């Protein structure tokens, strides 16, 4: 037990020490060279700005967060449904999968302006952009998972005359769960990135201004400390999303999947 605590302490303390050391170095460099804040603000100034502008930045963050979470939800539902559809018919998978790939490899920055023109509602257009970025890992991973069911278990299900639905419900879906959750964890971060990129393209206009437009705005005005503060908030949000999804994944896979088991003593 004490060994476990020691390791846990290390896992927190070691990266924390590295972080603090880097921040101290950054602050020292800024001070020694007296770099002006509009070129590079020191971490203390960024922290101070975050504290001062925090409430107004948080309002913007909720806009971006709402887009990201809605896009993630849409990616989970549509991506999962598409993967299940693929698992039902090999022909359907072969026919549609290349288009999912095309959607994935097309840089979102290049199609975002079109989507923003086509879709009238700002929130909806940003959501669509974020969704395009987020949905592929879920489709690809879940499809792989649905096709990875143990072959002998598939044979066993056939032996007992299981229906297609029973095979899906009791064998393919549980087999796909770890793959699906790995996809969701990647998509969580991508949804946030997609939302931010789309906001960048949409610019500062519009009534609902997300965190990305605040970053743009701060950049134009050379309010670099605020830019850093907004960036920091964005990173923390991304980390929080990843941590929450990792926790969910471990909860759902506890008991049975290798990835959720504690390391060997």
């Amino acid at each position, binding site marked *: 037990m004490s060994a476990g605590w020691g390791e846990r302490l290390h896992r927190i303390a070691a990266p924390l020490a590295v972080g603090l050391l880097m921040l101290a170095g950054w602050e020292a460099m800024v001070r020694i060279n007296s770099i002006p804040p509009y070129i590079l603000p020191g971490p203390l100034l960024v922290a101070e700005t975050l504290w001062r502008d925090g409430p107004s930045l948080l309002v913007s963050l909720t806009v971006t967060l709402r887009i990201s979470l809605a896009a993630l939800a849409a990616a989970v539902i549509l991506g999962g449904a598409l993967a299940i559809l693929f698992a039902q018919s090999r022909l359907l998978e072969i026919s549609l999968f290349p288009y999912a790939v095309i959607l994935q490899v097309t840089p979102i920055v290049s199609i975002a302006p079109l989507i923003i023109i086509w879709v009238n509602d700002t929130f909806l257009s940003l959501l669509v952009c974020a969704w395009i970025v987020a949905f592929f890992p879920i489709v690809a991973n879940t499809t792989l998972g649905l096709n990875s069911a143990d072959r*002998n278990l598939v044979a066993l*299900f056939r032996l*007992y*005359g*299981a229906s297609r639905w*029973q095979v899906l419900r*009791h064998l393919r879906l549980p087999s796909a769960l770890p793959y699906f959750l790995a996809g969701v964890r990647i998509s969580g971060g991508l949804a946030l990135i997609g939302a931010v990129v789309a906001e960048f393209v949409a610019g500062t206009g519009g009534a609902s201004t997300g965190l990305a437009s605040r970053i743009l705005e701060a950049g134009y005005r050379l309010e670099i400390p605020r830019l850093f503060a907004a960036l920091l908030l964005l990173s923390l949000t991304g980390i929080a999303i990843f941590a929450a999804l990792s926790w969910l994944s471990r909860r759902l896979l506890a008991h*049975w*999947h290798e990835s959720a*088991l504690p390391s060997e003593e």
Partner: protein
Amino acid sequence: MEDASTPLLALVGVGKSFRNGIEALARIDLAVAEGAFLSILGPSGCGKSTLLRIIAGLTPATAGRVAWQAGDLKGRIGFVFQEPTLMPWANIRDNVFLPLRLQGKSRREEAPRIDAMLAALGLAGFERVYPRELSGGMRMRVSIARALVTEPRLLLMDEPFAALDEITRFKLNEDLLDLWRQHRCTIVFVTHSVFESVFLSDRIVIMTPRPGRIVSEVAIDLPYPRRGDLRTDPAYVERCGEVSRRLARATA
């Protein structure tokens, strides 16, 4: 005694060629008597697993046919693979319940049957445990419980104990014989162990590879019930020698 009774099933000229042209099985004729414990003995790659899958209806034969005594046994066939092949996300009780669930049975009504099956295999108290928490031998017990819970008339076993240590294997051999006598089912048991096949079966067929065919047949007339002390019995050792010699001659 078994030879006199009507066969449960008969393979008539069964052959299997794969698409790549390899002939896995050639003209297999084999009758399996009702209530028999038949072992199929042979080196790996002789097609004995393929033969088992053809009987189960999991793989189609490319020649010949499987003739059933009383219609086909759909839903009355149990299968035990070389690996335990359990669902890792389900606990032991749910794993054993699986065949009944697939047949549309209710969990509550079948509870006594599942409990009895778990008890018979020494799994009482492990109902809520997950497969990964069990040893290889215990997992194989779950796999056997799952195969027997539907009260099959035919139990097909594909080298089920090959991956286990000898101590566990001996114990499971004895327990399997007890279960066979209690459930009065027919067992077709694939193995590459001479000692295991002689200990378990009343009849052994020996197969050779390329293409897989039956080259020899031995009746083991040792009386049941057979216990662990049989392993040192001169009669048992003598039968093992006889089967070994036939196997050596066949594969030479």
